């Protein structure tokens, strides 16, 4: 339908912009593989794959990655559960006072972490919850409630009402209906929520920087410390960066469609 020149112009524009995105990342990967501490790019044959092992050891990434993984997995599981409960309540059952309560929940998507971080820190300190993994999990979960509820509510409302009605006729209680019917039917939305929630939790820096120190450092904070110490060893710093970015990138490669559609939908509805 469109002419050949138009097609070529399209590809030229797209490729130029794509290269703008890829160039910094590509050059970062090359320096991670460089045997030279300045990160000077080298040919394929001279790639220093050992940089990853060295960086992993020197930055004590095994501990930091484990901390990040524990936090992310627990937060994802919790956020999905809270999203299911809240989304089902607001989307299907209805909630007493939802005319007031739901806007308050939505407001949470616009409240930035900065607005609450100061009291959060000093209150948690009084209860001895700073620098503990349960403490930070609690914060991630509470802050994730608005998006989780909003997201699952939309998913449940998109389900055909007749399914609920016939299940009600069969005498299914609300909890059984959620477990055996609504949740399985909303699987695509749940998967997207899992991916986005994992990405947000794993990529967090600010919250971890404030709340976790020493042995409880997450991978992102450990990377920040590592790069401060290894200013002159650019190849190791880059290798460390790729290690920390790897889990989310791997998920992005496998589930790219879900990631992109989820982020676009989440952004537009916000």
């Amino acid at each position, binding site marked *: 339908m469109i002419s050949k020149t138009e097609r070529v112009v399209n590809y030229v524009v797209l490729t130029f912009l794509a290269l703008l*995105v890829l160039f910094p990342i590509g050059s970062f990967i090359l320096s991670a593989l460089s045997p030279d501490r300045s990160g000077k790019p080298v040919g394929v044959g001279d790639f220093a794959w050992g940089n990853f092992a060295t960086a992993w050891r020197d930055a004590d990434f095994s501990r930091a990655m484990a901390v990040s993984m524990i936090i992310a997995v627990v937060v994802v599981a919790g956020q999905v559960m809270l999203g299911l409960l809240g989304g089902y*309540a607001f989307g*299907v059952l209805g909630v007493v006072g939802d005319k007031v309560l739901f806007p308050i929940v939505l407001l949470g998507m616009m409240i930035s972490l900065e607005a609450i971080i100061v009291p959060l820190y000093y209150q948690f300190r009084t209860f001895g919850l700073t620098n503990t993994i349960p403490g930070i999990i609690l914060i991630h979960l509470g802050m994730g409630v608005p998006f989780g509820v909003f997201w699952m509510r939309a998913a449940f409302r998109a389900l055909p009402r007749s399914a609920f009605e016939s299940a009600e006729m069969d005498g299914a209680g*609300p909890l059984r209906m959620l477990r055996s019917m609504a949740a399985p039917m909303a699987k695509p939305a749940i998967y997207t929520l899992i991916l986005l929630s994992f990405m947000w939790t794993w990529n967090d820096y600010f919250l971890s920087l*404030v709340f976790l120190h020493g042995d409880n450092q997450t991978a992102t904070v450990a990377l920040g410390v590592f790069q401060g110490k290894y200013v002159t060893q*650019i190849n190791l710093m880059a290798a460390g960066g*790729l290690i920390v970015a790897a889990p989310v990138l791997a998920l992005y490669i496998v589930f790219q469609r879900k990631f992109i559609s989820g982020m676009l939908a989440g952004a537009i509805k916000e």
Partner: protein
Amino acid sequence: MAASSSATVVRRRSLRRRTRWVGLGFAALPLGLYALVVLVPLAQSFQYSFFKWDGVTASTWVGFDNYVSFVTDPVLRSTFGHVLVLIGFFALLPIALGLLSAALLTRAKQPGMAVYRWIFFLPQVMTTVVIALVFKRIYAPDGPLNTALRAVGLDSFAKTWLGDFTWALPALGLIGTWVTFGFCMVLFISGTSAIAPELYEAARMDGAGPVREFFAVTLPGLRGQLAVALTLTITAALRTFDLVWITTHGGPGTSTLTPAVALYKAAFQNPQVGLAAAIGVVMAALCLVIAVVITRLSERD
């Protein structure tokens, strides 16, 4: 007949009312956690912001002093100036680039679009710490940028980009451009493909050229996407923390200090907790105002 049907309605209504109480039970756990972690601290932020407190000894009531320092303290005031510069790089430049590419690209589906989309979204899934490292290397004294400048004979332009009082802030801003422009592009391209083709045909019938067509059809059609992109990127500029903290710590001097970095320093480094809370409150209020104003504007005819 009529009586029995009205009885069913009544029964249904009471059933409905009962499920709404059950619903509240279901929502109790998420709502409770949300209140505990977000709403209570939000209220406390207001409270804290009227006190002077070092985080250890007793606090003293100071009224609006912490808010007054946004005007009187030149360093704090400058952080909002920096945000304005960052908005140019995080919001205006990417949106302009995104619109331009959406206008240049014809609206027909082509093979390979998925691959490009994947690439354009890549910066969105990378943690900012890693992005900061990527660009720290690019801007380094002997990094790729300076090497390239020297290679084309522009030696005098080569500098320590992130250590330069004039250039550090724009250099940081360009990182934001890099992060957000792909997102804006994908948003706008998917937006243009949703515009009814008849509108374009009508514009062409009226003899509109590509430029007129862009302003008469594409731009109004993208209003919703524009509002989303503006809200997200402007708030991102206002809230910049990770990038600055990893690359410059707000320096050299205070030339790249942002409100979020000032908040962090005031809250946890040399505690002026009340001031930190006030910064948080102001940032949240600005985010809210920006979102509301942009949504209102985009919905107006």
